[in-house]
Structures are given as C-alpha cells and as structure tokens.
C-alpha cells in the first residue's frame, strides 16, 4: 500500500489544532469535573 507523501502545511496545521483542542478539552473538562464533584 502506498500512502501520500508528506502532507501540506495546511494539513499539518489542522492536525496540530485538533490536538491542541483535545488538550484544552481535557484541561477544562477535568476542572468541570472538579466544579460538579466538589
């Protein structure tokens, strides 16, 4: 199976932003758990 060679800067930025959003979701999500649980 051949995959596409190195992807575009746009795709790189998009992947990075999705991952950053996941990190922020975990951060605020767990603080929300603190708010609801505490």
């Amino acid at each position: 199976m051949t995959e596409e060679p190195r992807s575009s800067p746009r795709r790189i930025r998009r992947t990075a932003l999705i991952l950053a959003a996941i990190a922020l979701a975990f951060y605020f999500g767990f603080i929300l758990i603190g708010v609801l649980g505490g």
Partner: protein
Amino acid sequence: MTTAVADAHLAHDAEHHGPPAGWRRWVFSTNHKDIGTMYLVFSLLMFMIGGALALAIRAELFSPGLQFVEPHFFNQLTTMHALIMIFGAVMPAMVGLANWMIPLQIGAPDMALPRMNNLSFWILPFAFTLLLSTFFMDGGAAAGGWTMYPPLALQAGDSFPFTIFSIHLMGMSSIMGAINVIVTILNMRAPDMTLLKMPMFVWGWLITAYLLLAVMPVLAGAVTMLLTDQFFGTSFFLAAGGGDPVMYQHIFWFFGHPEVYIMILPAFGIVSEVIPTFARKPLFGHESMVYAMSCIAFLSFVVWAHHMFTVGMPLTGQLFFMFATMLIAVPTGVKVFNWTATMWRGSMTFETPMLFAIAFLFLFTIGGFSGLMVAIVPADIQYHDSYFVVAHFHYVLVPGSVFAIFAAVYYWLPKWTGTMYNEKLGKLHFWLSTIFVNILFFPMHFLGLAGMPRRIPDYSTQFADFNAVATIGAIGFGLSQLIFIWVVIQAIRGKGERASAKVWDNPKGLEWTVPSPAPHHTFETPPKVSTEVAFQ
C-alpha cells in the same frame, strides 16, 4: 544502497549551509537534531541534580537517627527528587531521543512544527530554575510528596504557587512536544512507510504522545484547582468548604498512572530496536508489539485507583481496579515473550546497548512482578506506603526507563557524533550500574515487607542493615554514572574510532542510511523505503 545514499547525503551536505555559529545555533534552533541534543544535555544535568538529592536521602538513611538533615528538609528532598527525575530527567531524555530519531526513522527532514519545538525545549530551563529556586524560599521547597495531596500540599510555604507554576510550564512543554510528535508521525512519513512499517521506537512514541496529550492537561487542571483553593477561596478539595480531598487523588492518579507508561513505552520502543540488531534477527511479532503497546496504553486509563486502595472504595471498585491492573500483565507478557523469542537462536553479540537491553528485560520484569503484587487489594493494604512500593517503582523506572535510555544513547551515539564510544568503558559502566542498582533497590523489598514506611528520615534499628546496604548501592550507582558522562564526552570530542554509516552489523531502519555523524539536514527529499531498511 546504503553507501549510495550516504554519498548523496555527504554531497548534499557539502553544498548546504551548516548550522549557525555560536549561541544562536542553540537559542534560536529549529533543527530537530540540535533541539534533541539540548533536551539530552538538559536531562543529563537534571539526572545529576536529582541524583544528588537521592544521595542526600540515602546518606540520611544510612543509619538510624537523624544524621545530616532536618525531617522537613528530608521531605523536600524526596518530593523534589521525584519531580526532577520524572519531569526533568526521564521525560526530557525520551523527548530528546524522539527529537533526534523520529524524523530520521520516518524519513522526515525535521519535526512538523520546528518553532514550537524550540519553545517546548526552552520552557524547561525556566521551569526547573523556578522549581529549584523554591529550596531557598521561606518554608523551603514543596515537601508533601510529588503527588501534592491536599490538604498537606496546601500547608507549604511561599514555594507553593511557584511549584504549581513550574508544573504548568512543564505541562505546556510536554503537551507541545506531544502535539509535535503526533503531527510529525502522521504527516511527515516517507512515501511507502505505512503505519505498521514504522520502527518500534516511533510506534512507542506515537502512543506515548497520545497519552501525554490526554493526561498532562488533567495534571494541569488538578494543580489549577489546588491553586484556586489556596488563593481564590474555592473549595474543590477542602472538606471544610464542602470539597473532597479524595477527588484530588482520583484526578491526580488519572494523570499519574498513564504517566508511568509515558516513561516506559518509549523504553519499550528502544529495547525493540536494540534487541533485533544484536540478535541479528527481525523483531518477533512486530504487529503484536504494536497492539500490545496500544493495549497497555488503553488499560493505563482504567487502573488509576489501584494507587488508592487504602483510601477506601466500594468492593466492586476494588475488584475492578485490581483485575484491570492485573490484566496489564497480559500485553506486557506478550512483549517480554516477543523480545525473548527475538533472541532465540539469534546470532547474538553483547555490545553495551544490548547488555543494557537485556538487563532491562530481566530487571523491568522484576518491577512488573512486584507491580502485580501491589495490585492485589488485600496484599496492597500491607504494602501501601512501605519501602516495598519504593522498590517496585524504582525497579520499573531505573533499570527500566533509565537503562533503556542508556541503551539508546550507546546505540545511537555513533550516529550522532560520528565516533564509536569506548566499548570497554561502556561495558564497565553497564556492569557497575547493574550490580549497584540491585544492591540499591533489592533490599528495599525486604525493608518494605518488614514494615518500613516510605518518606521517613529516621527508622527503627531493625531496618538498619538493609538501609546501610542500599546506601552503599546508591553511592556505587551514582559514581558509576561518572563513567557514562566520561564516555559520552569522549565520543562528542571525537576520541575514538570513526563510525560508519551503518555503525552496527546490518541494522534495520532509515537512520542507518545517512552518514555518521548525521548531517545537519537530512531527508530533504523523501527517501525510498526499500525492503533493506523496512521492518516488515
């Protein structure tokens, strides 16, 4: 093919600009090799500082009674030793190896986000200067243990907000590093390098990066709530205000347990690279290794409360977390079996990286078995907060993660420097480290089973003999590391035989197709992943 590629690289490098001269090369670097080097040097420095704190702890514990330090300072030593070794030494060492090797192993010219890579590294010296400066503050450094359980952690002196801020900085650095690793691996692989063709070190790091991304924000959230409890009148964890201190423990260990795997999965990747090279056989069960690592990573999210059996929880909770924890032995067993099967009937030689990898296999497994023992709820109630636990996690982290880092450094050092390290001194370092690490940590099992609690500066006289032995082991282990530093410095200074592009006897992987030392810029045109270099 290798020679042709190496020649092409040499020719290319000659016409390409070299690195900038002087301090600018390091401060403004966006080159993955330079940033990798900085991470590794920083990590070595932190190993020395964390090691010095460990030696102070062991000196105090050499005999019963108070020798050198006050009990409060002793608590600062244990807390800071853990924070420095975990966040300053082991993790940055693994990130340094990732920076150096991931682009080389997947055929990428650099990390996907090189400027962020620079920022990820340069946050760390500030974070750790801040953390170390807390020793000199009113009330001293954090002393409530690296877990920072409230309400104890909230009783710290002036150091508290600075410790929290430095942990936030370390977290930001790790998250940015993790994003960079994932984006690089998903987007920058050479054509034809499908995911399952990737080297195991890259696989180990891809899974690790996802773990980092999921759990570092959780730690950040937990310490943010500690901060607001202390300074902004909230009561997340304060029982007096309606909060729940046990909730902190749940949130902390939701981060803390995957954190253990963050430190060991790249080590698994390293060992999976080293053993096939020196056994001269392909890795047994390449695909099953990937699935085993993924399985371990998944399970790491559902076992956190095994750190809290003595806190109290419903029986069903105890059973769930006990069985889930024991389940981790299955994929781990697959990995140990595969490494052993790789060596089976292999044409093995025992250069220093292989020695460290084999020691990893035996000694990490001891840590794994004692992990199974502490996973058993009724037994854990006896073991909890005893030196048995200290023995367990040090076996996992020192002859586990740290020995894998040694294996990786000896394995790739000729590729980085272009010079073969001194094999005799490397082997001397290995044997002294292996002997002393066992003298240091094995007696701690007996101490724990006999009832010696952890985090105490003084103890009953019945524990004196094994503590004296452990301290002798610590001094020997600490001094042995001077050999390692000497060997690395000599290789960097070019004192030794010139290394060929392949370095070892027909190793697999794209990193061996570039010359040694690896040029400043590599793989600016994507390489072809031939059967010669591919893993599958």
